[in-house]
């Protein structure tokens, strides 16, 4: 195949798949959130449009499309309009480095892992500009908060991606999937997987880290002034598109990518993505929101040191046992996960008690009214 033809084919594939993934996510996920969280909190959720409410997303889409596109009078209009588009670059580009099945990757880069992380910069930039351009203090605060959070949690995210890269010995996502032929990395590095999930929730501004949109403090954060299709862009395409990218990355790094019983194909990958997305929704329905100070402390004082220790020990084991490092790494990782889970209860209870004593001296744990 000539160079030019292959370039055109790749370009078209990149555009089609890159646009399809966020678009499908924007249609499926918001609806799934509403129905599933409705189910979890013993409500119905939207069930009027079409059978079991299945056409609700389309109705929502049409409504957003028909709404007037308003920009605040004092907003910086150019940036206000540009910001959603900048943020949208991330999901469109990041899809192109994900391997969907054996030999099917739109852009088979040998440094795909780094690119996935690098592309996430655009969303950060878009959110920051949206917050600034809106000329609204809630927007600005929401934007700044969101960006501080995303930048902070990007560090543990990258550290754990590096752990996987070390286990594989390559930065290519195809090699990552290839290395999981015998065992998925979730079984080798459950600790990294846990941190990946937690940091991912924060990166995506999802519960319990959805402070940027904390409606009780910030109205709707950087989204406050957005309406109509621009709101749809941000809320649907960017946020849920990024959720899909995160799930695709997680499935590729930890759950064996397109591998599965019978034959490896994109179906398995989509199934794994749906499982991870379900986890996101589950968290949404289960967890309360953190406070700002807790959020930052958790990133810098817990996740990053934990990831650094994990990185250091894994690296050491790889150097010491270059031929059979997977069992000891798995042993270490599982041991630390179990330790953390066992310790979590007592430590949290103590911290809670200390806090309650500080707020309301005299009360003891278990005797307070709430």
């Amino acid at each position, binding site marked *: 195949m000539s*160079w*030019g033809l292959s370039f055109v084919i790749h370009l078209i594939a990149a555009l089609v798949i890159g646009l399809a993934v966020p678009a499908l996510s924007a249609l499926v996920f918001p609806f799934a959130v509403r129905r599933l969280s409705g189910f979890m909190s013993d409500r119905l959720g939207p069930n009027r449009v079409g059978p079991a409410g299945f056409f609700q997303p389309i109705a929502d889409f049409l409504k957003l499309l028909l709404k007037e596109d308003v920009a605040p009078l004092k907003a*910086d209009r150019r*940036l206000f309009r540009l910001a959603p588009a900048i943020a949208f670059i991330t999901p469109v580009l990041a899809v192109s480095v994900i391997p969907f099945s054996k030999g099917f990757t739109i852009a088979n*880069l*040998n*440094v795909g892992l*780094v*690119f996935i*992380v*690098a*592309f*996430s*910069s*655009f969303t*950060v*930039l878009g959110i*920051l*500009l949206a917050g*600034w351009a809106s*000329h609204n203090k809630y927007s*600005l605060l929401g934007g*700044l908060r969101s*960006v*501080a959070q995303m*930048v902070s949690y*990007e560090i543990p995210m990258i550290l754990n991606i590096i752990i996987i890269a070390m286990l594989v010995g390559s*930065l290519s996502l195809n090699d990552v999937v290839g290395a999981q032929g015998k065992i998925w990395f979730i079984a080798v590095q459950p600790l990294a997987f846990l941190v990946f999930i937690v940091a991912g929730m924060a990166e995506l501004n999802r519960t319990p880290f959805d402070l940027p949109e904390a409606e009780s403090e910030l109205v709707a954060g950087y989204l406050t002034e957005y309406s109509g299709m621009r709101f749809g862009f941000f809320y649907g395409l960017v946020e849920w598109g990024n959720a899909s990218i995160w799930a695709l990355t997680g499935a590729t790094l930890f759950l064996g990518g397109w591998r599965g019983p019978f034959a490896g194909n994109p179906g398995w990958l989509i199934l794994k993505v749906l499982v991870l997305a379900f986890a996101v929704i589950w968290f949404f329905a289960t967890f309360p929101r953190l406070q700002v100070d807790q959020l930052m402390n958790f990133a810098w004082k817990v996740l990053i040191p934990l990831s650094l220790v994990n990185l250091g020990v894994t690296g050491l084991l790889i150097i010491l046992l270059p031929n059979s490092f997977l069992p000891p790494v798995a042993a270490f990782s599982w041991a630390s996960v179990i330790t953390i889970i066992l310790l979590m209860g007592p430590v949290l209870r103590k911290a809670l008690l200390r806090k309650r004593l500080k707020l309301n001296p005299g009360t003891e744990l278990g005797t307070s009214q709430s």
Partner: protein
Amino acid sequence: MHFSTPIFYLVSALVIIPAVLMVAMRNLIYSAIAMIACFIGVAAVFVTLNAELLAASQLLIYVGAISILILFAIMLTRRRSGAICLFFHRQSWAALPAGAALAVVLGIVLGSARFSAGSAPKNPSTANLASLLFNQYAFPFELASLVLLVAIVGAVLLAMRERRS
């Protein structure tokens, strides 16, 4: 003409036009955005040179971290009207001909120059890069960590509230 030539000019424009805009813009936020565009252009230059890791690092570090922090600093310190300021405005008339003359001289000389560093490998693999960085250039690489340390110390020294003594 090789097919890469027009791509090269396109990518160079992606670097140069935002760079000029960055200096010329009066609104700091716009300047910062132009700078980000310039960084993205540089990443594109790396891509055309098959240096994909460098391109990704450029995006990750310059667009994802440095520019964001700069924007953060501007937004937190400036009043939002985007203080309009242009440094050295009286000197710009003298700077223009001087800069133009330098550009012409550099253009003429470097345009016709023969460089021998083109013998570098065409496809710098990540492994090659790593072995260069951690073997031949290990010392400057480690020394760079001291530069970063000094930068951190400096940030604390200049920005931290006075200690209670």
